[in-house]
């Protein structure tokens, strides 16, 4: 072998919609008007819900959450390509996608107000918010293994994460298992350039995240993550590969979070307003709307009606959320195990006793201190 080159290795890149709304017709996916409008509506709902949540949070009516403004194409595009048979394995910054999968905004609000009840989702094959960076990739690989084992046809797992998550050992182990097992899984890495304050160049010395696929013998593609059509198309192709037994694909969605990491973060500490502005000019919603307009699928009036409808939907959810009651304090004791244990029940009794004391004390000493609604609704 003396001294030789091994290679060449390649990955692919894809963009269909330009920032100005023009597009490459040879690449344009074959989607119906309904599908396209569903996609746009989902992105819009994600955006409006996100911004409403930010207000609620600032008013102290919601806890900490991770805003998703800017990411809508990156996570709604893939969901359009998925069916209910596919599993959606999300992280924590895919609000629009979750709503598109069938989770309710009311539940999302409940979740970010600190109640597990918000995770009781109606959405099929959809896992709850997963905060531990990188862990969820492995779950998706296991799910995909189970799907193949059960002989499920036209079904795959699609899992989401961020650029920072590619540094975790679990990301590596997941892609490696997926490669060896050749299971139907699609990894969507939303490369939004930042992991809190850490820029991509301090996250990895690799030129692209897509090329990490080469280390695992799986497919890799870098996609304009603000281009909903390209995200749809890349996921479509990855799913088709997965369905036909060709294994896993890593999709790098190049995008940007135009706002803070979470509501506890101050992004002005680590990045410039110019950078943000540059990316705002590439807004995924604007681009998609221009596309729909050019295609004659949405005019100004329809756009405004849609805006209002979505806003009304958000308001209904906020109202429903704020009207929710019924949060028994001892619920956690019901979900430690699926079986009953004397030790746990003994502690439940202790706990309920202490809740009662606190209530009595409150009534006697500090009337009106906590909202009267419900014990547990702090």
């Amino acid at each position, binding site marked *: 072998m003396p001294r030789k080159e091994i290679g060449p290795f390649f990955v692919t890149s894809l963009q269909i919609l330009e920032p100005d709304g023009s597009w490459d017709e040879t690449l344009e996916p074959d989607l119906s008007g309904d599908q396209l409008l569903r996609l746009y509506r989902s992105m819009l709902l994600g955006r409006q819900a996100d911004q409403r949540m930010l207000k609620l949070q600032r008013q102290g009516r919601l806890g900490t959450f991770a805003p998703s403004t800017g990411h809508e194409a990156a996570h709604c595009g893939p969901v359009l390509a998925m069916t209910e048979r596919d599993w959606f394995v999300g992280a924590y910054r895919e609000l629009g996608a979750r709503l598109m999968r069938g989770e309710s905004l009311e539940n999302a609000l409940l979740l970010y107000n600190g109640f597990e009840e918000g*995770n009781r989702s109606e959405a099929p094959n959809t896992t709850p918010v997963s905060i531990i960076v990188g862990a969820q990739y492995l779950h998706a690989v296991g799910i995909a293994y*189970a799907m193949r084992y059960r002989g499920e046809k036209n079904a795959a797992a699609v899992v989401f994460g961020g650029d920072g998550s590619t540094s975790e050992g*679990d990301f590596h182990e997941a892609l490696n298992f997926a490669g060896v097992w050749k299971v139907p899984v699609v990894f969507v890495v939303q490369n939004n350039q930042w992991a809190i304050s850490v820029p991509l160049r301090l996250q990895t010395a690799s030129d692209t995240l897509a090329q990490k696929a080469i280390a695992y013998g799986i497919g890799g593609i870098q996609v304009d993550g603000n281009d909903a059509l390209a995200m749809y198309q890349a996921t479509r192709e990855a799913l088709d590969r997965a369905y036909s037994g060709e294994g896993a694909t890593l999709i790098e969605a190049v995008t940007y979070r135009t706002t803070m990491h979470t509501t506890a973060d101050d992004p002005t500490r680590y990045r410039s307003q110019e950078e943000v502005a540059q990316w705002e000019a590439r807004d995924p919603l604007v681009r998609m709307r221009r596309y729909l307009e050019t295609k004659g699928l949405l005019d100004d009036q329809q756009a405004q009606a849609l805006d209002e409808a979505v806003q009304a939907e958000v308001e209904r959810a906020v109202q429903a959320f704020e009207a929710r009651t019924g949060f028994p304090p001892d619920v956690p004791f019901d*979900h430690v195990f699926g079986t009953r244990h*004397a030790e746990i029940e003994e502690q439940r009794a202790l706990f309920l006793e202490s809740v009662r004391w606190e209530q009595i004390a409150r009534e006697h000493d500090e009337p009106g201190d906590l909202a009267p609604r419900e014990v547990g609704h702090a």
Partner: protein
Amino acid sequence: MPKMNLVSAVNLALDQEMAQDDSVVVLGQDVGVNGGVFRATVDLYQKYGRQRAIDTPLAESGILGTSIGMALAGLRPVCEMQFSGFSYLMAGQLEGHASRYRQRSMSAFSVPLVIRMPYGGGVRALEHHSESREATYAHFPGTKVVIPSGPRNARALLVASIRDPDPVVFMEPTRNYRAFKEEVPLEEEVLPLGKAQVVQEGTELTLISWGAMLRPSLAAAEQVYQRRGASIEVIDLLTIAPLDSDTLADSVRKTGRCVVVQEAPRGFSVSSEIIARLNEKVFLYLEAPVKRVTHFDVVTPYFGREQLFLPTPLRIARALEETLDF
């Protein structure tokens, strides 16, 4: 009833559960073709194929993480950590996901899986192969920790663990893998999780142990009985978490004295919790401090010195006598 050792009993449980429920799969390093480095999964690959006896890449977090996914999607994975000493690499997946999925989703999802792992000393092994750290996992809420002491209860507890709706850390005492045989029925036998067992009744002192410590404990009890006729009640904990403190308390209420024997280091351990529970439940019945015989709070020495650090019948017997004489 055939006689078999603990490894074979584990293998029997796996084999029978796989035979009757195709959602049961085993996975881990070397569990397939090789049948496991201790042969606990021997022949499963040949019988059930490589889709159900899965040789995984070398990655503990990957093994548990993918098992969680399988469990979410309806399988019942039994994964193996080759040695418990390497299991800390999956602690993130265990604490963060396996043990939380039920509560997070209010039981919409559950994660029925078993994490098997050999543990414990006394077999002259390399570094990291001799520790006993059941307390680490017992402290994670939502996680069950089970430790059999012999072939028969290993089989019956493993069956229960596989059928359990929640994650179970199933720790197998390496030292007892081939140390002795017992009759194990081929018919189904299941022991409930969360229940300790009185293996020898007595009236003067309660001796609590688990795993490989049961046998030296029984030997010590016998010595002390021979020497002075003391009637010692011996309890095999079997499930570490959730702890069956009622059985322990009932016994100590009767005997008034107690010794706990564990292989693990002393600090912040299972014996600590047992003593705390007895303090809470039977304080007024205690006629002597609860004594413990344990490893020490040193970094587990290599095997040249390991025997000096493990509880022996002699050390246990002395603790029994001191407690009886208190």
